[in-house]
């Protein structure tokens, strides 16, 4: 999610580096995402050139709540908005945005405002 000063104006999609097929209870591309660091670096450089910043990352949680998992916390970057969309049976049912505390201890939910 790109923008400036907390306002997201552009979405760039990045391929999930994980392509493994689903296995219930197991890790796979269904329930884990990984953005190639080089792809990320390119996105950030492009944004820099255009006077924008990467403000956060959006991802979905199929069939589970729109709150960060322990895995999300373990891998989180500070100063990013983590927008999580809960998708149940193929439909987006809930979206929440989260921000990592500076001491990495937890996420705090943040307000999302949608403007035209």
């Amino acid at each position: 999610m790109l923008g400036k000063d907390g306002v997201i104006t552009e979405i760039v999609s990045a391929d999930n580096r994980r392509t493994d097929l689903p296995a219930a209870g197991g890790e796979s591309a269904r329930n884990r995402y990984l953005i190639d660091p080089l792809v990320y670096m390119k996105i950030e450089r492009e944004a820099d050139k255009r006077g924008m910043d990467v403000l956060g990352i959006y991802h979905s949680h199929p069939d589970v709540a729109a709150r960060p998992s322990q895995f999300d916390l373990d891998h989180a970057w500070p100063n990013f908005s983590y927008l999580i969309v809960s998708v149940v049976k193929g439909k987006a049912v809930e979206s929440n945005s989260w921000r990592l505390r500076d001491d990495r201890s937890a996420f705090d939910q943040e307000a999302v405002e949608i403007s035209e």
Partner: protein
Amino acid sequence: MAIKVTIPTALRRFANGQATVEVPGGTISEVLGNLTTEHAQLRPHLYSDDGKLRNFVRVYVNDEDIRAKGDDAQVNEGDEISIVPSIAGGNLAKLDPIIKDRAKLTNEEIKRYSRHLILPEVGVEGQERIKAAKVLLIGSGGLGSPIALYLTAAGVGTIGMVEFDTVDFSNLQRQIIHFTGDVGKHKLKSAEEKLKAINPNLNFIPYPVKITSDNALDIIKDYDLVLDGTDNFPTRYLVNDACVMLKKPNVYGSIFRWEGMASVFAPHLGGPCYRCWYPEPPPPGLVPSCAEGGVLGVICGIIGNIQANEAVKLIIGKGKPLMGRLLRFDAMDMSFREYKIPRDPNCPVCGKNPTVTKLIDYLEFCGIGRGEEGGTSGDSIVEKKDEGLGPDDISVETLKKMRDRKDDFVLVDVRNPDEFAICTIDGSVKLPLPELPQRFQELPKDKLIVLHCKSGGRSGRALKFLRSQGYGKLKNVAGGINAWAERIDPNVPQY
């Protein structure tokens, strides 16, 4: 010497908002060390408590990942270090316990299962699910033995067991639920005695039948999960298909010689089924059975216990099931390898448009004639005795007469060399079945050729092969050398 370090957006607030920082240092670790000294707030995000770079932090020197070189690598004037986020996350859908019911534990059971109860992942709740669980074991042989023993000890409330066979001396090397004194006894009786001795709380339900397309759904439907300990393809496909249709998890295991495999098949829980992995059975005879190829007894314990382990996890809904993954064990290397088994969207049983919607004739599907039908446990290649001999068969009594009369024929033993060392019939030509396609021309076409193996299965296949090569005068010894040992020459050992 100052090196330019690029800071990712996410961390710039901790570096006074700068996109790049000039930091002194001669190696990567020196530069990063100085960076995090100068901007201390960066440290917890780059390094974990044990001082290692976090696994989601990538460091590039001039766009080259340093992981190959290590962070002691030199940096030179003009180099640019970039800190790049590897962005990861996501949430695992929780695996629900397949057992929804809970059965209250008695005081005796609380004592018995105390080591489970203090395991946080099991606890009283998990143990009550284990007690409520109804588990079906197909076979009480090499795999079924350890599975039954451990699941009974673990407190599984109900165990059904399908087995038609009686205990044989050749079972004792690996089927550890059966003891020497049980030889000749029905395996279900033998198993029940041991299981009840371990845990009298067990509700044991014996099925003294062969599992077939006619009875499989009826037997399986009352259970929560199935553990497949069969040694033959028709039963394996039958159990798979029935479990897919009834939405029952199928914990699969198989063993051969020094190898074993295990997986969990459960399309209704998101995994593949056996057919996603093996849509078609191998041609009959290509994969030898344990009775033909041998098996290290110990492997049964290793693979069977992996199955039991997965069964417990499914029951309590904890951990990562062996689903979508095939675990292959090599006893000689002492190594485990994991293979991914993707779900096949076109699978004939669990795919989007299944073509197999009711149980079929699995013997026909596997290309096996009724005579060499497989069973459920180790020594399943049950051969025809005297009655019901096929047109190509002769009995061992006939073979004896032919030898006594000094008929003109060639007796060919198609077993493996290791088996020749155990016993042979005097005067036989040794030609192992795997070598037959290369060596069959050693056999005369104008003479009667009589083929034998251990019990008649492999020599039957050899006969078919020779017929396809233009041999006309062929006979197969029904019951093989074991029948010879039993009925003609008691000096020959049976195995």
